[in-house]
């Protein structure tokens, strides 16, 4: 369709040019400037949305980290209680060996808890970083759109002022 319309436009342009008007040039430059400006707005809005989403995800990640920590501690306590109840049922008195087993289990579970917690917290931190980055991107999107529109606006200015 464009191929069919362009010749007609060109003919109109010739007619308009003969009369001394620059309507198509101004429209073209206006469209180009508008495209740049609206692209900037679109980028701003996208970055802003990305920032907000990342912040939410960061919060979720932090919550999950804390939940993971608590879950690990609750599981450790359960395991120790279960072991004590087994030893008690067997009439076995706590000794050095028993405490060593408890300590070994506590160390293993603590290590696992820290790892899980750390992963969750890292995940949250990643989202927080992404949100920061998106925010920064949002702040630059509008100026960038304006900058991209500047040449067209300059041409339009030249055209209008000529």
């Amino acid at each position: 369709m464009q191929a069919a319309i362009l010749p007609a436009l060109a003919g109109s342009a010739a007619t308009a040019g003969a009369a001394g008007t620059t309507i198509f040039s101004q429209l073209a430059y206006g469209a180009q400037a508008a495209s740049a400006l609206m692209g900037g707005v679109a980028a701003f809005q996208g970055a802003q949305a990305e920032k907000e989403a990342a912040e939410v995800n960061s919060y979720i990640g932090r919550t999950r980290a804390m939940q993971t920590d608590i879950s690990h501690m609750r599981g450790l306590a359960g395991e120790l209680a279960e072991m004590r109840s087994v030893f008690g049922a067997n009439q076995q008195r706590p000794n050095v060996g028993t405490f060593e087993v408890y300590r070994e289990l506590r160390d293993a579970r603590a290590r696992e808890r820290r790892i899980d917690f750390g992963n969750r917290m890292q995940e949250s931190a990643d989202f927080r970083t992404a949100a920061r980055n998106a925010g920064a991107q949002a702040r630059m999107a509008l100026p960038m759109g304006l900058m991209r529109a500047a040449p067209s606006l300059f041409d339009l200015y030249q055209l209008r002022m000529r």
Partner: protein
Amino acid sequence: MAELRKIVRRDPISDFRRVAPVGGTAFAGLAQMAKEAYEWMAPAGVEEQQVIAAEAWREYARSIMGDPAAAPPLPGAQGGLDFSNPPPAWVASGGDMPPNPNLSFGGGLLGLVDQTEGGGDYSTLFGHSQREGGPFAGVDVARMTIGQALEFADPSGPYAQWVLSQVGRVATPMGRFQIVGSTLRSAVEGMGLALSTPFNAQTQGAIAGYLARQRLQGASTPEAQRAALRNEWEGFRRVPDDVLQAAIDEFMAGGSFSDMPGAASAPAGGSRSSASETSQDAERFMRAMAGQGWTLRPDGIWASQTGDTWDPTSGEPAPVAVGEAPEGMFVMPGQYPRTAMDAAPRRPGGDDPLDQGGTRRPPAAGADGVPAVGPTPAEMLTAAGWTLHSNGAWVSPEGETWRPGSGEPFPASVMSDLPEGMFVMPGYYPRTGQDPTPLRIGVTDPIYRPQARPGSPLVALRPPARPNPTGTPETEAVPATRPQARPIVPETTIRTAEGRLAPRLYSPLSGPILQAYNAAAGVAFVSEAVMRGREDLMALSQQFLGNPDGFRQAAEGYLEGLVEQAPVQFREDLRAEIATEVHRRYLGMVDERYREIRERADNSSRALMDRYATDLAEAYASGRPEDIAAAEQALEGILVAREQLPGVAWTREQSQNVVLETMREGERLRARAGQERSDALKVRLQTIIDAAEAGRSAADEAAVLADPSAAALHPELYAEAQAMTALRDALPSFRSATPAEQAAAIAQERARPIGERFELGILDAMESVHAATVSALDDDPIAWAQQHRPSNPPPPLPTDMTDLAAWENALTARRDYALGMVTDGYVDEPLFFTEAERDAFTALIGDGTDPIARAAIGLSLTRAFGSQAGRVMTELDAAPVLRHSAAVVAAGGSEALIAEALRGQQLLDDNVVRLPPGSLDTIMPEDVRAGLPEGFRFNEALVDTIHALYAARAQGVDPSSQDATDLLTGAIQSALGQETHARGRLTGGVQEVGEQEAPTLLPPGISARQVEDGLTRAIGGEVGRWGAVVPMFDGQPLTTDVMDNARLVPIVRNGQVVTGRYRIEVLYSGAVADVEDGRGNIFILDMGLLTRGVPR
């Protein structure tokens, strides 16, 4: 615990989902759409910019290059417009007029038209050809009517054809506004003007205003307005846009095309009182008048088809009804139609403000008597004699300049002429004393009034608005505002790789659309400038034909001037292109020069070769060795030189051909010279023969007859010449002798022994002369006598016929001479006139001559020739009527018969008289018929004479009546010579004669009694009346008894009566016998002799 496991989840981590980065999609879509729109429209924008750039920069190139009629300033030449430097350059229509310092022009469109078109003269023709020395000197279109101007502008007329010969196209610009014929015709039709309307200043201004308004009507933008006016006046194409636009704005705000009385001028105030509207009102008024059949005469008076007149200055009401005027208009007595806002009546030619010719002149005072806004600076400057240059600067008669908007103070010299109550602060508009706020003019163009803003002191100074019929105030008149300036983006300046500063139109950082403009502008300007420059260079080269160096020098100067005029960014390209063209044309001129030199050398050597070849051929023809040697040497020299001439390629073989052809030409010349000599000798011999035949001697007779080559070339002519000269010398009178004498001399010569050889030719010459003499005497004896009888020439005829006696005596002498030639034996029958005389007389007595003159001439001929009159008339081939009547008169009839017969013939020719029906035989009375002799015929001459005499006498008589028959009988008798003598007796005609009263045809002038008395006297003894012979009858002389039974019978020969000759018939014994003489021959009676001395 088990229960707890069921209600407590194993993994307490929440089930929150991460949020997706969603946002800005709508704007992203819009941005994409805008991008698509750009990509869609960018090609159209590029095309648009290319078109605009091409058109604008071509136009600009044309404006700085100028039209052919106003060419850009060539080195050493004047012409062209320069709008950048005051004072203005004079540009005449046609571009060929020198500056005229005595002329100055006003501002506005009128001033621009004056500068670029008509030069301020309403009589201007193309090239000012109406001035003294021009091809149309004395032609004044301003004094013509529109119809005459249109006729003068006929495309096939001399004016259009002359312009065609000047500029290559038909154009007929006329008048101050250079309106061409076709435009004038359409404007006249559009305005409804009559062809009898004078094409004077007022009409020209109205038509120009109409044309400008028509053009501006459909133009909404300033560009379109300028283009529209430039299409109407080509001279505006050389006017910068800002100057032209200012003039257009001024015109639209109330300017006009006329500074003549009655033209538009507008006072301030009133919504419909602008000059533009008033000018349109005038046009409407003229159209309304023309629509009702009124025409404007050259004396300024309107005339209607019914004969009514109206003088615009008389004060009488205009004949056009008020209803004809546009709404809100009315016609003041004796005025143009005006609006109700016009308080003061306007009188064309009087105190009408229309007559002032100013623009936007404010009223002298408002309603409160306070002066309103004073005269505009333009009006003040104009009043002080300043003129507005097309570049916007004002120039005083002393050369002082002031440019509005420049910041310079308003000229102090103009301030002294301010109206009372006005003052001008230095550098300000003239204002009134009540104006507290001076307006600085350094920033505002004083041509235009400042915009009246609410609260401005200008508003307070204006007269109060007049209420309209609805009670609401009229819209306050707003002074013309300065058109919004169109700021020009400064050209972008860049520094090139060479370190130079170079301007650009649009910034190099611009997008492709503006870059397309830049590219197209450069191409358009350079191509247009180069194209025009090429034309200029070709024209320039025509001024330096054969001088390439002079052309190059002039072209370089032209190039510099052209480049200086060009925008900086295009100068380099333009210089390169034009320099290339200059170089090409220079090379072309050098080539043409060399070619011309070669051609000239070739032509020169060829001319010398032809000349020397001709000399050699003539030398060959002359046969003189020294001339041949000299000519051969000269021809050989030029042929050798020609063989060595470069570019001619002349070979030795061609030289040999030239020599051979020259030799053949020499032979031809020799043969031609011999033939010419032979022809000359032939002519000279013939001259000798002719001279000898005439009895004379040729000048070179002896030399020619002594020339042996004459005898060799023309032996027969030579012998004839010898014989003729010998005959002339031996028998000088031979030529004038009678034919009989010549024949005798020939016989004698033939019998004479021959002594010399040439004498053999004498006899031939004599016979030749004799034959010529016989032929000449037979054809024209009088002319022969004039030539060969110098001692006794025929008497000449006088050319003056007014002396009738001398004339008739000369004719009589000629008659005697002709009869003498008969007597002398030259001719048998006389001819009285030469052929030339015969032709002259034939014309005089012909049908084309008046009958009275013919009768007079015929009568004089009859008198002079007497009995020979009939012969003369026959010789002159006279009309039958004249021939017969002259014969009757010569035989003794009345001289009046000739005039009467000719007059009657004229009446017959004019069909005035009708003849009686029937032939003469049936009408003729028996007694007349009985008198006519046997064998007598009514020939054509007699019948015509009878009819002519009847016609002369029968006017008003019924042809079928008895009177007509009687008249015809009388005409027959008159034609036969009968008339009534003074004593009452009839003479001539058919009369009864003798005892038997026998009808007898008598000769004219002789009565029957004369005949009877003559016979009685002859019988009685006067025998001499019988003549030499006495008549005898039956062996006895005639007696009275015999004559009582006798009758006279006219002798008839060839059907015609021999006048006066009769034979006598005697009725004897029942038989008829002729009277005889003594020898038995029929006796012929001479009636004249018989009646001599006998009274009638």
